[in-house]
């Protein structure tokens, strides 16, 4: 072996190289989640158990006055379970990134000739893939237990799309906290906040039936619009307006979280961890 001299690749080659890195790191992220049960549990097992308990125990909520028109409580709850899993997947992704920083694995990545943003995007690509997986999982569970997806295959595609994009947007928050703190336990501390945000939205209960101030908070919570975007294909009411609201909310959360991640990354590079 003799050293080869380095030469700078062109823009197209650089873009391709960065896309390959994002793909490779995304695959690593998914494999890592499957190989570490403590990362898998919050993404699939907890939301599934919560879905089962809530559906079995609070099924008669659909009889409440002003409850949205749905075929059953399971149909209503599916979107909440998916978004819960997505938020937790984002949190788990943040924890895994923080672990990479703690053990020094991130330095191996940062010492490579690729954009450091690609390295973060690689982690988020894995979170998006896990989001899509959770969407498929809950769709299968829902269909197996009697839910119907009123808007059929296009509705399923919409749900998977929204959940995957949400995973990137919410994963950005975990990534930002991981990059800023470099500590897995700090990112883990977001776990209760995830539930506060969920309960202050329409994920588990219609916003119009919540008490004040939760009702007002839920009505302005971007998560409410995202949950609507995932729920409406199930109940058959997805309109271009609610599609745009869901996508806009995802874009808003994503812009903030990815912006914060970029700032945290720049700070980390400047200060050296």
């Amino acid at each position, binding site marked *: *072996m*003799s*050293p*080869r*001299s*380095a*030469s*700078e*690749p062109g823009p197209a*080659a650089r873009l391709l*190289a960065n896309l*390959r*890195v994002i793909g*490779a*790191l995304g695959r*690593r992220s998914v*494999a*890592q989640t499957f*190989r*570490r049960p403590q990362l898998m549990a919050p993404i699939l097992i907890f939301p599934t158990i919560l879905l089962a308990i809530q559906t079995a125990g609070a099924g008669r909520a659909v009889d409440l006055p002003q409850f949205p028109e749905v075929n059953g409580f399971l149909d209503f709850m599916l979107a909440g379970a998916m978004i819960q899993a997505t938020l937790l997947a984002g949190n788990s992704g943040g924890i895994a990134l923080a672990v*990479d920083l703690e*053990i*020094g*694995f991130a*330095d*191996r*990545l*940062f*010492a*490579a*000739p*690729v954009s450091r943003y690609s390295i973060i995007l690689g982690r988020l690509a894995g979170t998006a893939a896990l989001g899509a997986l959770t969407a498929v999982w809950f769709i299968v569970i829902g269909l197996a237990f009697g839910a119907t997806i009123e808007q059929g295959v296009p509705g399923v595609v919409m749900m998977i799309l929204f959940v995957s994009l949400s995973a990137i947007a919410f994963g950005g928050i975990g990534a930002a906290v991981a990059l800023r703190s470099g500590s897995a336990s700090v990112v883990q501390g977001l776990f209760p906040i995830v539930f506060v945000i969920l309960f202050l939205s329409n994920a588990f209960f219609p916003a119009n039936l919540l008490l004040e101030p939760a009702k007002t908070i839920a009505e302005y919570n971007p998560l409410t619009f995202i949950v609507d975007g995932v729920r409406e294909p199930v109940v058959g009411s997805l309109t271009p307006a609610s599609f745009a609201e869901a996508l806009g909310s995802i874009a808003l959360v994503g812009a903030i979280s990815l912006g914060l991640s970029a700032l945290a990354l720049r700070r980390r*590079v*400047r*200060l*050296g*961890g």
Partner: protein
Amino acid sequence: MWRHLRRALKSSALQSGRVTAIEARALEREFEGGIRAVDGVDLRVAKGEIYAFLGPNGAGKTTTVRMLTTLLRPTGGEAAVAGHDVVADAGEVRRSIGVALQEAALDPLMTGRELIRLQATLHALPAAEGRARSDELLRRVGLSEAADRRIGTYSGGMRRRLDLASALVHEPEVLFLDEPTTGLDPVSRKAIWEEVVKLNREGTTVFLTTQYLEEADQLADRVGIISAGRLVAEGTPAALKAEVGLPRLEITLAEGSPTDCAHVLSRFGEQLPAKDGALVVELPQGAAGIAPVVRALDEAGVLVESLDLHEPSLDDVFVEQTGRHLEGAEQPAAGGAEPVAPPAAGEPEAAPRT
């Protein structure tokens, strides 16, 4: 002997050739709170050289490596690696270097093969080339059979070898090894050393940090000694050791007159004050000079109980420059700055270089 000569010739050729692989001028890094981890380091490492950065924990070795590998921005001074500025051309630097960081930062959930293939992707090797290169490197470091096992099941030595292999995937011009053998058993350490020497013979410039004297002594063409963020001495191991004094032979007599013995010893070198009842003489030839001394003492009828040869070490160089021992650096040397090997009469004490 031949090893030293070969290294001296190589070092001289490299320095006269002036092809620089790593260069730093007044390099500084100050952390929040005013902690100055690296304080004006000047470095010049020639292409094809093995340069060891020797110092105790907290001396600034890793911070220097992190700046040279673009993982940390300097707060002062400048540095270039493989001809590229570490700040302005960080991407080019990263394309030219291989890095194996302290404590082999590996993902225990990945397999060895996955790690090297990921590294190949990070360095933009085409997929087929990356696969072939991974297989070749795993074979080279003796990990072919363990390649599909999770890294979490590897021993410390296996992790280090894997780390080294992953740093080589793109055939870097300059290889940075941050304490590559810390915590390894002697066999694993030797395996890493052999691989480093082999890589260097193949043309790779190696910059390694270490807190092990033997490692720097065995491997390096030149050694830089760092203490409290400053380069306090630099040179070939032989030259550095020569600066602090010559080898000393301590002789304890079984029978015979100390005066007769001293008379004989005066033919071989400068006599030093007796130590714990033993006569002490400087022996410029080191171990090679022992046999003639023994023969001369025998001919003079002096019976020797024991002979101890004390050769200056890099630790002596460190003590000379800093007043502290390199290993167990928290404890100052007795008297604050006890020179282990006193300089020869008339020879000036070496002054700190920075």
